[in-house]
């Protein structure tokens, strides 16, 4: 059990840190993208767009510390539920929009894969909250847990790259017909 919790914490933490850095590097682009979602009014979108990457980074780091873990995981769940709401809204309108999940690192579009990814992250975060509240065990991060957690994060990124590339190729095929 200890292994699974440590792996999941590392995974979520690494995932949020990795995905927040490209957004911070290209903050202007992410602010524009948040406004493009059209879920919140322009000015609020600018503020949220400027805040989200830093909140993600802070929550990702907070998750490593046992004292702040429940708070961080709860914050992550709230953030993810908000993302999910925005993504579902975009899907309903039928707009083709970059999801901006990894800034300029990966060009991923808002689609069902985004929803699936968000739901998996929510489930894992819920597991972290539940296990941390129940204090089933003390989490000791072993080298192996960290490696597996980071590998899982990279796996999600790899899935995203494969999915986006495949989708782009299918679009090109469609347009050349």
């Amino acid at each position: 059990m200890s292994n699974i919790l440590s792996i999941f914490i590392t995974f979520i933490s690494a995932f949020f840190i990795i995905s927040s850095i490209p957004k911070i590097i290209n903050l202007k682009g992410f602010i524009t993208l948040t406004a493009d979602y059209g879920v919140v009014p322009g000015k609020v979108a600018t503020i949220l767009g400027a805040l989200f990457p830093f909140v993600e980074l802070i929550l990702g780091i907070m998750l490593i510390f046992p004292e702040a873990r429940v708070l961080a995981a709860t914050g992550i769940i709230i953030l993810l539920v908000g993302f999910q709401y925005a993504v579902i809204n975009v899907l309903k309108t039928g707009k083709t929009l970059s999801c901006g999940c990894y800034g300029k690192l990966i060009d991923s579009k808002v689609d069902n894969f985004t929803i699936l990814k968000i739901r998996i992250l929510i489930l894992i975060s819920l597991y972290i909250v539940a296990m941390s509240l129940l204090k089933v065990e003390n989490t000791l991060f072993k080298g192996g847990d960290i490696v597996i957690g980071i590998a899982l994060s990279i796996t999600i990124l790899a899935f995203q790259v494969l999915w986006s590339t495949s989708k782009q190729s299918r679009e090109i095929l469609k347009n050349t017909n």
Partner: protein
Amino acid sequence: MGNILLYSNILLWIIQLIVVFSIIMIFKQFGDIYLKSSDAISRDGIPIGDEIPKFQGLSYNTGKYFSKKDLEKMPTLIGFISPNCPACKDMIPDWNRAITKYKGKVNFLLIGVGQNRDQYNEFLKNRPLKGDLILDPDNVGQAFRVRVTPFAIMLDEKGVVVEKGLCNSEQHIEHLISYSSSTKLMKKGV
């Protein structure tokens, strides 16, 4: 040692997942290229040189009875449409123009995929059709090996396929008709 084995095993499973996902994506890509490209669509339909299967049905708009035999005196262009296909809707005016242009030289017949009359009522609302339309008699679309609409097959006087392909513009219709012997003669001024 036990831990190293456990972690390496988990890592290998993760890598395996990425490999499986990659293979699925590659297969999806192959499927798209094989089934959805224009080359793939041109492979649809009955092969050139083959006869069309027997079929019969009542015309949706004129009530006239149609069978394969009725198409044997003149070259025939058979078009396949479906009620939910926007390109099929756009093709109707071109189809009507071709009927007027080749009257007495080429038979024109549309086969509607699916037999839902309500959908075709809606389809033809504000969209007058000059030729005949029969609603997919006995899943004839499948017998003609048509996967996408609008698709058309050009037949000679004997009911043998001389050309086939997508049919969503006047150029496509003209291209298909150009394969019939009588229009070839017409163009030569005979």
